[in-house]
């Protein structure tokens, strides 16, 4: 059996399917003797992955083996556990693994620590209670166990650097011992004591941002090439620069690579450091290895400034033409660089250069480019710069060069570039007077005829033609195009062709729809199409059938097939009460045809498509042509320093020709890297790293979100302090606003004492007028040696109060604590008499603020700074932030159905979504709405049959209306409000409330 299993593994590795043997691998691990078990476990760990369903069958085996007295068996079980284990079965084996932390054998302890590390990675909240045991593992006498525990600490410190400050000294001590050779000899690796351990420790210390980082540690950093932690210590940087030089000059290719990388880090802070190595960098540019080349390009990018931009760009264009394979990243880099430099304007040598470079970029990079690059280019063109004349010249030149490109061989150009060309021609070709619109139209029509043109490009071209077909120019061409594409299968193309046809015939309409040069004014889009209301009511009066949403139509179609049991349902006037009985009919339809209700009628009707419905559609399309893509770069305020020291001119000594060329190149590349330019470079490096790291950051954010989701639920209360408060965390001291929300913070749970006690004691300091109001859990904000800041919020009838507690734990009084709160989304006003507070020793000072929403967002955050002074005189400051959900600002809005109907029409921002129903009761709609009412404090205006209307307001008078409709087991929700973003945010909270239920 064992033999066969080994063969199966081999087959699988060679790429043949061996899934039939998976179950046998599990059986072998379960039933085999020690030897067979080993192979069985190996096969399982190679065959299956964490999410495989067969893995559940292994759980029992693992449990049995963990309890075995045979060391080897325990080892095997722990190995497979830390390799992969189904997440939901962790609680079953967790106590056993924990027990193994105290095992006399170090190999078992080590494996147990790593297994727990794995658990921490996949389910952090389940191992929270054993943090103390990790500390014990850190102090283990066996270095292997200690090393293993560092993995966990690295992870935890990354997430919460503040929480482990106290361990910094122990880490430094360990590091010193390791460097001092205190470890057993067999940890040495080529006479370096335990390099892996050292690196691990250095990475941890990087996150601790320790001040203990002493000189020898720094030397070690350089030695091991952890240059990152160093970049914050300028004094050490200069020393490290020397070492980096050695690396870059090194003949060994791997070291060279690292040297370049390190240099890239360092240069961000001190561009001058690159000067020493300029010749090496130039050599690296011509290196045969692409990876090296790429690193060099990145380095060059970092040192770009006003004087050397054109040389660098040229240099970059050149290799990058050759290395299409790995150019994606360089590409972005490079384009960003150009766009950036151009936005600076004074950077770019001239218009022609810019347009030509961009053309090269587009035609080479083509469709591999990210879509936002052409967009930002177009934005740049249309927004222009300070000088009108310059803008005109730039556009003119663009038109000229693109026309000549089209006259050449447009078939070779990539689609993206064609789109850009057609947009520019459509928008700006009028600038060139001698150029006839008909010529351009003919050129564009040629594009349409090409086989390789995609339909997306075609619609761009048609749009450009629409803009151009003025004054009867090229009528024949347009007519021909309209005929061809008017019957196209692609609906978008057909619509464009129709537009073209209508607008080319009707000059007046054209002038109104497409005013020349007005591309920049943001268009107001009325998504609710309310301007059509008049038209609709006219049509209705004339006897037209009301509009039905597609799903409604389908529903009716289905009904038509079924036998109708109410034969006269439609023709008789029906009262609303009968609607709910005849619930298979859509109440909207009924109400319209019977004319009984005025409120619901309008909402069903308003979205009618009239004969000219497409007109209203054009506006959004038009807008999409110049979507404003925010450029990822912030333009730094500094202009190029023309007078920067040109310290690196040619050396007077005569040099051989190629060498001289290189030096020339060097001097042009590194020009302007003098002292003054550092500021400007800093600004840029910041923005680029931002761009590079964005991906990583996104990942981090999403994983953070995951963890925060995991840590919510009942377990959330004890460990991680979860500042993000949901509506259900509100503690219930008064029944006025919220009736039955789960967690009652007032009950101190037996095991979570210290925080809770403090909470209770702070609670007594709540201002008297708030007693009786319900307040959220008191959350610690930040702590330093003397002052503890914590806060909670209270919901009042027409406002939200934020209360900040300042607890002075020192023995001396602190006067003049200045507390400043600020927020992007909120308006914060202080309720106290003065913003200056005083905290007596061992007592609490309280500040009160009232909050209103400026701009809705799903979660809003208040950022605060407290500055205070000790009696001795040293000023201190502390920063904190407090996050709260939008739901705390939502209050019920009591309106009648009629008022609701009137308001509904006035609001222009809306959003629609399908939500899940709560379907445990008899009446799912009522149940669901009740849940929403409870959790979000909405006001249910009326429930009619399968539809319900709900209203609420955001403090203070910003209403939001909600219309719900039961459809095919889901709840179609339609939210409307005069406030932008509010419907979206509220929808998010509704969704969440229903999910949590």
């Amino acid at each position, binding site marked *: 059996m064992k033999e066969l299993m080994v063969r199966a593994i081999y087959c699988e590795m060679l790429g043949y399917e061996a899934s039939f043997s998976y179950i046998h691998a599990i059986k072998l691990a379960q039933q085999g003797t020690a030897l067979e078990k080993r192979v069985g476990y190996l096969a399982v760990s190679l065959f299956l992955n964490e999410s495989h369903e067969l893995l559940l069958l292994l759980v029992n085996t693992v449990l049995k083996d963990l309890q075995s007295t045979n060391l080897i068996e325990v080892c095997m079980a722990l190995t497979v556990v830390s390799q992969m284990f189904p997440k939901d079965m962790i609680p079953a084996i967790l106590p056993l693994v924990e027990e193994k932390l105290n095992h006399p054998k170090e190999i078992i302890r080590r494996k147990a620590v790593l297994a727990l590390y794995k658990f921490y990675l996949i389910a952090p909240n389940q191992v929270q209670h054993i943090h103390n045991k990790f500390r014990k593992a850190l102090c283990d006498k066996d270095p*292997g166990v200690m090393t293993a525990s560092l993995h966990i600490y690295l992870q935890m410190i990354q997430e919460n650097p503040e929480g482990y400050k106290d361990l910094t000294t122990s880490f430094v001590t360990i590091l010193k011992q390791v460097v001092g050779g205190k470890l057993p000899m067999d940890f040495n690796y080529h006479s370096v004591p335990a390099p892996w351990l050292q690196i691990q420790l250095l990475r941890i210390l990087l996150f601790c941002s320790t001040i203990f980082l002493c000189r020898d540690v720094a030397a070690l950093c350089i030695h091991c090439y952890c240059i990152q932690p160093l970049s914050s210590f300028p004094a050490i940087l200069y020393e490290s620069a020397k070492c980096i030089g050695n690396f870059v000059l090194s003949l060994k290719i791997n070291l060279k*690579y690292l040297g370049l990388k390190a240099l890239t880090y360092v240069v961000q802070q001190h561009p001058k450091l690159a000067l020493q190595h300029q010749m090496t960098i130039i050599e690296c540019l011509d290196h045969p290895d692409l990876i090296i080349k790429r690193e060099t390009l990145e380095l060059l990018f970092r040192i770009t400034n006003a004087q050397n931009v054109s040389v660098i760009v040229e240099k970059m264009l050149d290799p990058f033409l050759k290395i299409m394979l790995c150019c994606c990243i360089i590409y972005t880099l490079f384009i960003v660089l150009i766009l950036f430099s151009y936005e600076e304007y004074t950077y770019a040598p001239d218009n022609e250069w810019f347009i030509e470079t961009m053309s090269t970029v587009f035609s080479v990079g083509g469709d591999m480019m990210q879509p936002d690059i052409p967009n930002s280019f177009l934005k740049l063109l249309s927004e222009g710069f300070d000088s009108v004349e310059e803008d005109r010249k730039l556009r003119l030149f663009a038109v000229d060069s693109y026309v000549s490109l089209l006259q050449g061989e447009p078939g070779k150009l990539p689609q993206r570039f064609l789109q850009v060309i057609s947009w520019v021609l459509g928008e700006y070709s009028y600038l060139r007077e001698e150029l006839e619109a008909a010529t351009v139209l003919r050129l564009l029509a040629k594009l349409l005829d090409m086989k390789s043109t995609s339909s997306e490009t075609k619609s761009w071209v048609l749009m450009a033609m629409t803009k151009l077909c003025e004054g009867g120019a090229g009528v024949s061409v347009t007519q021909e195009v309209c005929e061809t594409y008017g019957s196209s299968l692609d609906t978008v193309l057909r619509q464009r062709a129709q537009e073209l046809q209508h607008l080319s015939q009707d000059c007046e309409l054209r002038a109104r729809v497409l005013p020349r040069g007005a591309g920049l004014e943001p268009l107001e889009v009325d998504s609710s199409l309310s301007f059509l209301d008049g038209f609709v009511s006219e049509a209705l009066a004339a006897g037209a059938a009301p509009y039905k949403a597609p799903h409604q139509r389908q529903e009716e179609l289905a009904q038509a097939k079924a036998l109708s049991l109410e034969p006269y349902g439609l023709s008789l006037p029906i009262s609303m009460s009968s609607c709910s009985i005849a619930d298979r009919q859509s109440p909207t339809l009924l109400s319209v045809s019977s004319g009984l209700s005025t409120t619901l009628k309008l909402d069903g009707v308003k979205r009618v498509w009239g004969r000219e419905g497409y007109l209203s559609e054009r506006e959004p399309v038009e807008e999409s042509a110049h979507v404003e893509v925010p450029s990822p770069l912030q333009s730094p305020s500094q202009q190029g320093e023309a007078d920067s020291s040109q310290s690196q001119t040619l050396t007077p000594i005569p040099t051989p020709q190629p060498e001289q060329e290189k030096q020339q190149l060097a001097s042009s590349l590194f020009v302007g890297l003098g002292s003054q330019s550092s500021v400007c470079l800093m600004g840029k490096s910041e923005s680029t790293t931002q761009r590079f790291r964005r991906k990583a950051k996104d990942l981090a954010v999403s994983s953070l979100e995951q963890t925060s989701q995991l840590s919510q639920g009942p377990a959330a209360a004890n460990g991680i302090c979860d500042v993000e408060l949901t509506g259900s965390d509100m503690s219930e001291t008064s029944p006025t606003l919220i009736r039955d929300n789960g967690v009652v913070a007032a009950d101190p749970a037996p095991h979570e004492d210290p925080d809770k006690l403090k909470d209770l004691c702070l609670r007594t300091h709540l201002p008297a007028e708030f007693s009786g109001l319900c307040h959220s859990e008191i959350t610690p904000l930040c702590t330093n040696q003397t002052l503890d800041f914590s806060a909670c919020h209270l919901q009042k009838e027409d406002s939200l109060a934020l209360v900040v507690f300042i607890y002075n734990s020192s023995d001396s009084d602190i006067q003049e604590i200045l507390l400043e709160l600020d927020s992007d989304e909120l308006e914060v006003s202080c309720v106290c008499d003065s913003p200056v507070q005083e905290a007596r020793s061992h007592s609490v000072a309280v500040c009160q603020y009232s909050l209103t929403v400026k701009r809705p967002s799903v979660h809003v955050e208040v950022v605060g700074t407290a500055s205070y002074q000790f009696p001795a005189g040293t000023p201190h400051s502390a920063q904190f932030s407090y996050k709260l959900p939008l739901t705390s600002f939502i209050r019920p809005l009591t309106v009648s159905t009629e008022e609701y109907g009137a308001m509904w029409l006035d609001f222009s921002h809306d959003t629609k979504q399908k939500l899940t129903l709560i379907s445990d009761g008899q009446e799912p709609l009522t149940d669901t709405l009740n849940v929403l009412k409870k959790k979000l404090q909405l006001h249910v205006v009326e429930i009619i049959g399968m539809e319900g209307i709900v209203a609420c307001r955001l403090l203070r008078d910003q209403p939001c209306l909600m219309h719900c409709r039961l459809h095919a087991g889901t709840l179609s929700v339609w939210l409307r409000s005069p406030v932008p973003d509010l419907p979206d945010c509220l929808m998010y909270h509704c969704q969440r409330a229903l999910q949590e239920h």
Partner: protein
Amino acid sequence: MQFMLLFSRQGKLRLQKWYVPLSDKERKKISRDLVQTILARKPKMCSFLEWRDLKIVYKRYASLYFCCAVEDQDNELITLEIIHRYVELLDKYFGSVCELDIIFNFEKAYFILDEFLLGGEAQETSKKNVLKAIEQADLLFNNYLNNSLFIGIAAKHFVKSSNGCSANFA
């Protein structure tokens, strides 16, 4: 570490270990891509690659390529040393290891790897300790063979002579 691959100059996989859950299809795609990219690189080029959002660190030993994928923030040099330490371990265990050793005893190679790296992190960096753990497990295995297998003296002898591992594909 995300995964480790061993492959020959001909592009044949010799050993693969994945520390992240991936479907079979993705694994195959990734290994095919990487093997092609790495084999195309010349011996004088550096050992590091940036591939998707990962860093690939590889090293060639005779006819065998060792290739590791690590996250962006990991140190390349130390990963290179991990590869080297693994080769040292193999070398010590098999006694001047060659590609054939790994082909015929690849489960052994896996066992050693499991003792050295666990769940994608270095578990034990001391060479002595790793080998001790492997030897203990092998000892158990030999005892078991001696006690319970009486199929024939020849078979036993064969097993013993090949250091406790039968040659599967001999």
